[in-house]
C-alpha cells in the first residue's frame, strides 16, 4: 500500500489545497478580509496566495522527491505527482486574477 500512497499523494494534496483555499475564500468574505489592506493587496488575497504558493512548493517537492521503483510502478507515481501539481496550479490560479467576494 506504500506504492498506492505515493501515487495518491499529489492528488490528495490537491484536494486538501482546493478545499482549504475554497474555505478560506468563504470565510474571508464572511469576515470582511477583502476590505483590509495589506501591503499592495488585501488580507484576503494575501492569505489565499500564501496557502496556494505554499501548496505549490509542497507539490514541487513531491514531483522531485516522491518517485520510487522502476518501470510502470515508477511511471504511475510520477504521473500522480504531476497530476497534483498541474491540478493545483490550474484550478486555483484564479486567486491571482480575479476579485474575491462578488
Amino acid at each position, binding site marked *: 500500500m506504500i*506504492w498506492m500512497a505515493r501515487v495518491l499523494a499529489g492528488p490528495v494534496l490537491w484536494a486538501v489545497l482546493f478545499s482549504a483555499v475554497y474555505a478560506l*475564500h468563504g470565510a474571508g468574505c464572511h469576515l470582511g478580509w477583502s476590505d483590509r489592506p495589506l501591503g499592495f493587496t488585501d488580507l484576503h488575497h494575501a492569505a489565499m496566495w500564501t496557502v496556494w504558493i505554499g501548496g505549490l512548493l509542497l507539490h514541487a517537492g513531491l514531483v522531485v522527491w516522491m518517485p520510487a521503483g522502476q518501470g510502470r510502478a515508477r511511471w504511475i507515481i510520477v504521473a500522480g505527482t504531476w497530476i497534483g501539481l498541474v491540478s493545483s496550479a490550474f484550478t486555483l490560479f484564479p486567486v491571482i486574477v480575479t476579485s474575491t467576494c462578488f
Partner: protein
Amino acid sequence: MTDATQQGPGRDAGAGVLPDGTAIEAADIAASPPQRALVLHRQLDKVWRDLPGWRGFFTSVNHGTIGLRFMATSFVFFAIGGVLAMMIRAQLATRDGAFLDVELYNQIFTMHGSIMMFLFAIPLLEGLALWLLPKILGARDMAFPRLSALGYFCYLFGGTVIVLSLLFGVAPDGGWFMYTPLTSRTYSPGINADIWLLGVTFVEISAMAAAVEITVTILRCRAAHMPLTKMPLMAWYLLGTSVMMLLGFPPLILGSILLEVERAFGWPFFDVARGGSPLLWQHLFWLFGHPEVYIIFLPAAGALSTIIPILSRTTILGYGAIVAAVIGLVFLSFGLWVHHMFTVGIPHMALAFFSAASALVAVPTAIQIFAWIGTMYEGRVTLRLPMLYVMGFFATFVMGGLTGVMLAMVPFNWQAHDTHFVVAHLHYVLVGGFVFPMLAAVSYWMPLISGRWRVAGLGEAAFWLILIGFHGTFFLMHLTGLLGMPRRVATYPGDPEWEWLNLISSIFGMVQAAGFALFAFDIVMQWLFGRRSWRNPWKAPTLDWAMPLPAPSYNFASLPGPRQPDADAILPLARGEGLLPGAPRGWRETLVVEPGSGRPQHVMVLATNTALPVATSAAIGSFFAMMLAGLYWLAPLGILATLIMAWRWGEIMGTTTDHPPAEVAPGLSLPLHWQVRNTLAHTGAVALLVADATLYASLLFGVGFLTVVAPGWPAPETGFGPWMLPLALAALAAMAVSTVIAHLAEARRDSAALRVWTLAGLGAAGLGLALLAPLALGLDDPTRHARDALRGAVVGFAVAHGVIAVMLALRAHVDAVRGRIGGDRRGALPVWQLFQKFWLATSIVSVALICAQEVLA
C-alpha cells in the same frame, strides 16, 4: 524474476510471509498435482451452489447469482423508465397534448430521471462489478457475499416502493434533483417527496454496500502475485468507481436525511426564515451529482478498455497513462460540482475555481479516448456486435462532448439554459457514455453468462434501431432547444413551430424503444435457443475466460497463481493445478492477498447460503416504511429490528478453536482468516469509515456553509450552559477509556482477565453513550434555528456512533465469554477498536465545534 513492476508495491512488514519469516515469492508456489476435473467440479459445486427453487432466491449469497439478479432487475427498471419516456414523447408529440395532465406529467419526468439514475444506471454497474470482478481477478467470490445479497434486497424493496408510488399517484414530482424549497413541506405537502428521499436512501444502502465490497475485493481478493500495476484495466476503473461511490454518496445520503428530518420534524436546515439555505441542498446534491456522472462513466469506460483491444486483436495502448487518467478523473470530478450552480449567485473567484476544474477534467477523458483510438489504429478492428456498440459510443459520446463545450461557454449557456438543448446534451452524454458501452459489455460477456452463442442477425438489427432511433430522437431536441422550447413543459399551445420537430422526435423515440425491446428479445432467444458457445469465443487473454462456459458458481476449480496468469490456464486450473484446489474442508474458501504486490496472505472462509440478508433488509425496510407512513413514534422499532439483525450477522461468524493452516499449494500453507488480524472485515471496516468520515465532513461543510451564508445568527438562548462542558468532557473521557481498553483487551487475549477487560470496555463505552443523552437534551430546541438543528444533527451523529460502538463492545465481550477470542483469534476486537477511535475522534471535533460557536457567538 526481475520484473520491475513487482518492486514498487507491497513492502508492508509481515505481509505474505512464510512460517520461517521469509516473504512468499512467486517461485515458492509449486503446481498442485493434477486431478480429475469432474470430481473437483462435483466437490466444489456441492459447497458453492445455491439452494434449489424459491429458497435459493432468498438465501443465495453467491456473487454470480446476485450480480446477474442486479443486472436483470436494473433492466426491468430500465424498461419501466423507458415506458415513462415514451409517455413523455407521446405527450409532447402534439402542441396541446391531452395525454397527461400537468401533475401527472411532473411525476412522470421526475420518475423517468430518478429511475434511470438510481434504479438503472447505478445498480447495473454494481451488478456488472459483482458478477465480473472475482472472475477477472481470479477469485471465487466477492469479499462479503452476504453484503451483496443485502444490497440487492435493499435495492429491490426500495425500487419497488418508488415505482409503486406511481401507480398510487403519489410519485415524486419535484424533478430528479429535488431542489428545495419546492420539495419542502410548504410546497410539497404530500408524501411524494418523502417517497424520493426515503426510497432513494434505502436504495443507496446497496450502493454503499457495493462500494465497500468492490473496494475490498479489488485490493485483497486478487490472484496470487497479481500486482496492482498488472491487474486488468477494468479492475482499475471499478476501483476508481467504488472509491468515488464511497466519497460521493455520503453527501447525498446526508442531504436526504437532513431534508427528511426537516420535512418530518421541522428542523430548519434549508428554511431561509430560520437561518437555513436552499443552497445547502444544492451543494450537497451536486457534491454527489457531479461525481455521479463519472461513477456511471468509469465502469463503461472500463468495459471499453477491455473490449476494444480484444476485438482489435491487440493490447491496450498506454496502460500506465490510463491508470493515471482514472486517478486524475476520480479526484478532479470532486472539484467541479459548483458548475451546476453557476446561476445561483456565487462570487466570481469561486466560479473561476470550478470552471477551471471543469475544463481540466476534460484532459483525462481525452487521454482515454486517444488511447482507445490509438489501440484500434494499431490493431485490426473486427466489427462484431460488441464493437458496433463501441462505434455507437464514439458517434454519440463525442457529440455529447461537443455540445458540452458549447454549454460551457457562459453566453451560450444563458441562452440554452433549461431548454431542450440541455436535455439533448444530457442524453447524448449518458446514453453515449453509459448505455452504449454497457450494451457492448452485455453482448460481450453474454456467452460467459448463458454458455450460449447468440442467434445471428437479431443483435445487429437491434443495434441499428437503437442507434438510428436515438439520434433521430435527440438530435432534433437540440433544434427545439435552440428554438427556445423549455424543459419540463407539458404543452406548448402558443408555439406551433416546435410541433413538427417534436412529432418526428417522438416517432424516432418509438423506433428506439423498439430497438431496446429487440435487444431484450435477442438476450432471451440466446438464452433459450442459442447453440453452445465454444470456449473463449473472443480469444481474450483475461482470467474471466479461463473457466468453463457458463461460469460455474465457484468460478475456478483451483485459483490462478503466478503460473496461471491468463486465459490460457483454463485446463490446468480445471484440473486443480492452481491454488486452493477443490473444497476439501467443505467451506467456501478464497485467497486473500497483500493489496499492492498480490502476495498471498491468508485463506478467507466465506459465508454460505443464508436468509439473513433478506431478513435484514426487511428490518431496515420496516424503518423506512414507518417513516413513510408518518408513524414516527413507531420508527424506532425498525431501528431496533435492524440492530437485532445486525447482531445476528456477527453471531454466525467467528470460531472457538484454532484451525490448522490450509494447504494452498504443495509446501505452502496459509492461516485461515479467523487467525489473522488484517482480515477482509478489517479492510471493509476501514472503507466504511472512509465513507462515514465523508458524511461527517459533509455535515461540517453544512455548518461552515450556513455560518457563512446566513450571517447574524441570533445568540443562543440557553446555549451550551456551564454545566455542559464538564459533561461533554466526561463523555469524551469515557470514550477515550473504552478505546484504550479495546486495545488492552487484544493485548491480553490469552489471559483469564480478558473477559474483565471486555466488560470494562463495554461499561466505559456505555457510560460515554449515556453521558451524551443529557447533552442532547440540554441543547436548544432544534426547530428554532438552523444552528440548533445542525447542533442536533452533530450530537445525533455522536449518539448513533455510540450505539454502534456499544454493540461492538458487547460483541467483543460475548466473543470473549464464548471463547471466540484467544490464541491467534481476535474476534470482533479489531473492528471494535476502529469504531471506538472513529467515535472518539469525531466526538472531539463536534465538542470543539460547539464550544467554538459559543466563544464566537
